[in-house]
C-alpha cells in the first residue's frame, strides 16, 4: 500500500471467543509494581 503501512498482525478478534486459560502473569497496574498492564504483556501460550 502507498498510504498505509500496517505494523502488526493483530489477534484481538481471534480471541474474542477463546483464550482465558489464565496461565499468564498477573498484571498489577500499581506503580510500585511497575504498572505491568495487559498492553505490556505477551500471551503465555505464544511464548
Amino acid at each position: 500500500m502507498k498510504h498505509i503501512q500496517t505494523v502488526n498482525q493483530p489477534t484481538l478478534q481471534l480471541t474474542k471467543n477463546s483464550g482465558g486459560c489464565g496461565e499468564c502473569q498477573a498484571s498489577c497496574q500499581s506503580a510500585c509494581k511497575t504498572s505491568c498492564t495487559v498492553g505490556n504483556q505477551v500471551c503465555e501460550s505464544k511464548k
Partner: protein
Amino acid sequence: MNREMQKKIHKFVQNGMYILLDINSGAVHVIDEMIYDIMDYFDGKNDAEVTVLLAGKYPEAELQEALSELHALMELQQLFAPDIDVPPTFKQQGLVKSLCLMIAQDCNLRCRYCFGDGGSYGQARAVMSPETGCKAVDFLIEASGPRKHCEMDFFGGEPLMNMQTVKAVTEYVRRREKETGKEFKLTLTTNGMLLNEENIQWLNDNEFSLVLSLDGRREIHDAMRPDVGGRGSYDRAVKNFRSCLESRRGGEYDYRGVYTYLRGTYTKNNLDFTKDVLSMNDAGFDILSMEPVVLKDSPLGFTEADLPRISAEYDRLTEAYLKRHREGRGFFFFHFNMDLSNGPCVAKRLSGCGAGHEYFAVAENGDLYPCHQFVGREKYRLGSLDEGVTDKKWPQYFRESHVLNKGKCRDCWARFFCSGGCHANADLFHGDIRQPYEVGCEIQKKRLECAIAVQAVLKLEK
C-alpha cells in the same frame, strides 16, 4: 457520516508519525497525512462524501487511491473491526493465581510519597511469621485449582527486614512445587539497603525476580527516599544494585522468566524525569521503569494542570529512548515494551490486574485484601488465611469491574491496553473502583501512544 464508526478507531500524531489504531482488532497502521484527514470523516460507506469534503486539499485520484486502501483494511478486519463483548471463556469466577505477601509491614526508609505509611499501612509495625507465610502457600495451591503457574510477590515495607520468613516460605514453596506439580514464580521488591553478598547469592540461587527501587538522579532520589535517620539512600542503593546486577550477568539467571529491573517514581519535583531515566541508564542499569506518583491532596502529586508538561516529557523520553537505540546503546523501558502481534487474549484484557479475584494480598497477620494497596482499608478485608474468603461480594464485584462494565472505560480507545486502570487508585480518588482516576488515565494514554509509536518505529526501521 456515521459518528459511531469514529468510536472504533483512535488516531494520533507521535514523534512526527501519523498513527491509526483500530481498537477492536488491535491493528496499528502508520498512515500519511491524507489518510489522517480522511479518518475525520470516513465511516466505511461514504466515499463520495469524503471526496467532496477533502477535494480542496487533495487531488481526487489520490483520494480514491487512499479510500481503496482503507476498504482493503476493512476486508481484512483491520479497520472498523466488530465490537468485542465478554468472551464465553471469561469465567464467572476467577481462580486466585497470585499472592502478594506483606513480609514486613515495616521499612528502613521513609520515602516521602509512600502510600503504605512508611511500610506500616496505617497499622502497628510488624513482620509476617514463617507460619503465616507457609499457610499462604497452601492457600494459593488450593485456590489456584488446575492452574499450573502461581506467583508470589514478597513485598512490604521492606521484605529483606524479615529474611527468616522469606527463606522459610521459599523452601516451603519449592517442596510443595514437587508435591503438586505447580510452578511458582517468585518476585521480591526491595529498596536495596539490606542487599549484601550473601542474600544476593541466595536470591539468585532461588530464582527470584527482583524489583529494585531507584528514583534516578542522586539529588532526586535522596530528597524522596531518606532513611529513618533522614539520610539519603542513593549511594547505598546504587552500590548494592550494581553488585546484584553484576552477579546476575551472563544469562545464567535468565530462565524461568527471572527478571531484574530498576523502577523509579517521579513526582511534581521532577517533571523532567527523562533525565532520571537516562541517569539510571548512565549508572549502568538497562532494564528500567519510571512511574508517576499517585497521591491525593499532596504537593508531590499531580493534577490535570500538570498533564501538558507530563505529556511533553514523554515525548522527550520517547526521543531519547529511540536515539540511544539507534546509537546501539538502547535500554529496555518497561512501558514502551509491547508486543502488538502476540498480546494477551480478550479474557485477559478484561480480567486485568486480577485484584480481588485472581490476585490477593496477605497482610502480615494473615488477613486477605484485594491487593497490597488495599491493605489497611478495612472495608475491603476479604477474610483471612484461617477463615478463607468470607466476603463473597467483593471478589465478584472486582471480577465484574472490567472495562466493558465501567462507563468511562467502555468507549475509551485504550480499554484493551490498560484494562481499566488501578482499582486502588480509583478507590483512593473516588471511593469507587468503577470510577477511574482520571489523571492516571491521561498519563496512561499518553504512555501508550508513545509505546505504540516506539514499536512502529522499531518495526519500520528493522
